[in-house]
């Protein structure tokens, strides 16, 4: 008896658990491809045009300071709040200009802010839908009134964009939302693109930006690395980059064309499709357990009769 039940159990476990999981892993390898929406809003940052004045950074802080209850970041020696030089994106900095200097002649500025992915990892992992992607504009937005502060978005984002306010008792996640509730609503353009004096940041629809980027690559191929960063990275992003130096040197990671969220969702969906597998597992286990209990009870009763 025992032998059979063990074999049954192993069969069961093999069929329901391992089989499903293996299917998931297998399916996930076959990329079905994701629909890219080129009508979404985005920005094109051309590092060769950037002069590093950081006007975008200060405009970003000025415009977005109320929204999300951010305050100007103050240096300790700067009581008037006139001087602000954050070294990285943080709970009070949504966009940042950095300088990468390899030698006296080879250097480049680079701008960091949310990439507004076509298939954002942060939206995929947020357990309570605090991170959302707007259907028409494609803006990846954050709602602090829903957020539970689990920081899974930070783990998931391959660009390390969402930032958490570690120093606050009532913290929130901070990231660029294309000035959705501020400058974009009032003036129809993001603050950073509006103020850039060197026209290094171009705001517009993704398809126009892509066209422009490829035109620039064609016109002056010597100036650029022949690649539009963000066109295919991680399923495509709406924030695009042109630069004269390899992008990984500028702190932009090399990412495969398949969106990381596609991979994880496929496995998760295969396991939990229609909740069938868990229900099947539960009912099968119930069946076995009840049968075992009955058998055992019968056994007990026999003993009691014998005792009498």
């Amino acid at each position, binding site marked *: 008896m025992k032998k059979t039940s063990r074999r049954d159990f192993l069969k069961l476990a093999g069929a329901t658990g391992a089989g499903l999981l293996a299917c998931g892993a297998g399916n996930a390898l076959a990329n079905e491809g994701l629909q890219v929406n080129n009508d979404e809003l985005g920005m094109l940052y051309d590092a060769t045009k950037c002069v590093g004045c950081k006007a975008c950074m200060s405009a970003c802080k000025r415009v977005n300071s109320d929204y999300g209850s951010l305050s100007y970041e103050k240096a300790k020696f700067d009581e008037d709040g006139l001087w602000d030089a954050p070294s990285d994106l943080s709970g009070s900095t949504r966009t940042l200009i950095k300088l990468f200097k390899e030698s006296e002649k080879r250097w480049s500025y680079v701008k960091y802010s949310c990439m507004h992915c076509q298939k954002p990892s942060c939206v995929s992992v947020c357990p309570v839908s605090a991170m959302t992607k707007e259907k028409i504009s494609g803006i990846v937005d954050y709602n602090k009134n*829903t957020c539970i502060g689990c920081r899974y978005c930070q783990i998931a984002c391959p660009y390390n964009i969402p930032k958490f306010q570690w120093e606050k008792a009532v913290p929130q996640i901070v990231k660029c939302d294309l000035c959705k509730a501020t400058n974009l609503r009032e003036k129809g353009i993001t603050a950073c693109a509006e103020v850039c004096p060197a026209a290094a940041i171009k705001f517009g629809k993704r398809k126009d930006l892509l066209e422009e980027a490829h035109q620039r690559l064609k016109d002056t191929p010597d100036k650029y690395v022949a690649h539009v960063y963000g066109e295919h990275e991680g399923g495509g992003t709406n924030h695009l980059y042109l630069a004269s130096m390899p992008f990984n040197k500028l702190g932009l990671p090399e990412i*495969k064309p398949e969106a990381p969220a596609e991979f994880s969702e496929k496995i998760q969906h295969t396991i939990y499709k229609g909740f069938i597998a868990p229900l099947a597992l539960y009912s099968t286990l119930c069946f076995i357990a009840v049968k075992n209990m009955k058998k055992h009870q019968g056994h007990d009763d026999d003993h009691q009769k014998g005792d009498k």
Partner: protein
Amino acid sequence: MGHSEEYQKLEGKIFTKSFFILLSVVLLGFYFVGVRYVKGIGAVSNMSDGYPWGIWITYDVATGTAIACGGYAVAILVYIRNRMQYHPMIRSAILTSMFGYGLAGFSVMVDLGRPWNAYNFFIPSKWQANSAMFEVALCVMAYSTVLILEFLPAILTSIEKSKWDRMNAIRNWLHPKIAPDKKTMEDKLEMVRLGAAWLNPRLNKVLIFFIVLGITLPTMHQSSLGSLLLIASTKLHPLWHTGFLPLLFLLNCVFIGYAIAILESIISSYSFKRPFEIEELSGLAGLIPFVTVIWLTVVIGDLSYRGQIHAALKGDFYSGWFMTEFLLVACGSLILFVKKARKSARWLFISASMIVLGGALYRFNVYLIGFNPGQGWRYFPSFAEVMITVGIVALEILGYKVFVALFPVLPNMDLHGAHKKKGHAKKHKGSEAEKHLPAGEAHAH
């Protein structure tokens, strides 16, 4: 079924020296929890935007719940594989699971930045089924409830049988002016007793469905704990990032569960000076290699499929941690292939410790050690951060000690281990255990 006689309370004092030592550790941990709520997470922890999950998630949640899988593993054995002889072990396993999961939930509330928004988990319009964390959160909450229900019979039984000595003692200790009237109190207590007596048999009838739920839910969320890191394809080292993460985490929690059930039993037998339950333990130990061999095979097979074997043998930082994890589990399992080792409490202890350590290290590797968010980020837990985790673990041990004294949790020695007592008088020897009847037979009578 006669379950209540199957278990007994532990005789002895609750307020011992170790109680107060543990209590002070707990209080220190809770002091830092207080600091965290007043001054923010950054004030007590070294977590950063690069390493947003520190040891609270890695140890308390991802590893702690695996260590709390004793209840899950033993329940599979007893109810699904029909090995009723292990039934006496299940209550203490469920008790540790209950504390493990409850406190994992507690440390999540410490770790969450905006815990007051956690009610969103219960609002269907906010549900986000793509998120592995959503699945983990709901499952863990449901499982904690199921664990409480599974443990409830122990509490109900002891209420039914209680003579209310402690309650009366408290009443007598109180000043007569504020002490409740003796008669009213007795009436009320009698009502509680009747309520418990009414509920207990009814609960027992449907309990099996909760028990099976208690097997289904960990299967779901333990695999999802692995799925959590699937998304971090650019950050998690290729040694650990694979589509098989959910399967590996599931198998991992099963062998950790059996190994921890062995460790718990040995440690509590030793510290409460009860005889070792060597027959049951060696039976459990015989199961572990089945699971670990599958796990090790999947690990190697997956590495070679993805062409990462060289990364495992490279000898760098990552391969070092990988080899440690792998060898701990492999060597721990090898010991269990030796029949003599399975009958010796000492060897069982050594091998179970190695397997638990290796299995836990696997989870640390996935969540922290193999996780690299990019250049310039470093993480090592701060003192306060560690103390919060240590405080929570101390609370777990404290709770266990109090509960086994208050409620019938540990296997009844008179029933199924009476003839073991002599053997325990001197330190236990493996050969003596072999003479004993299989515990199942003893318990059936």
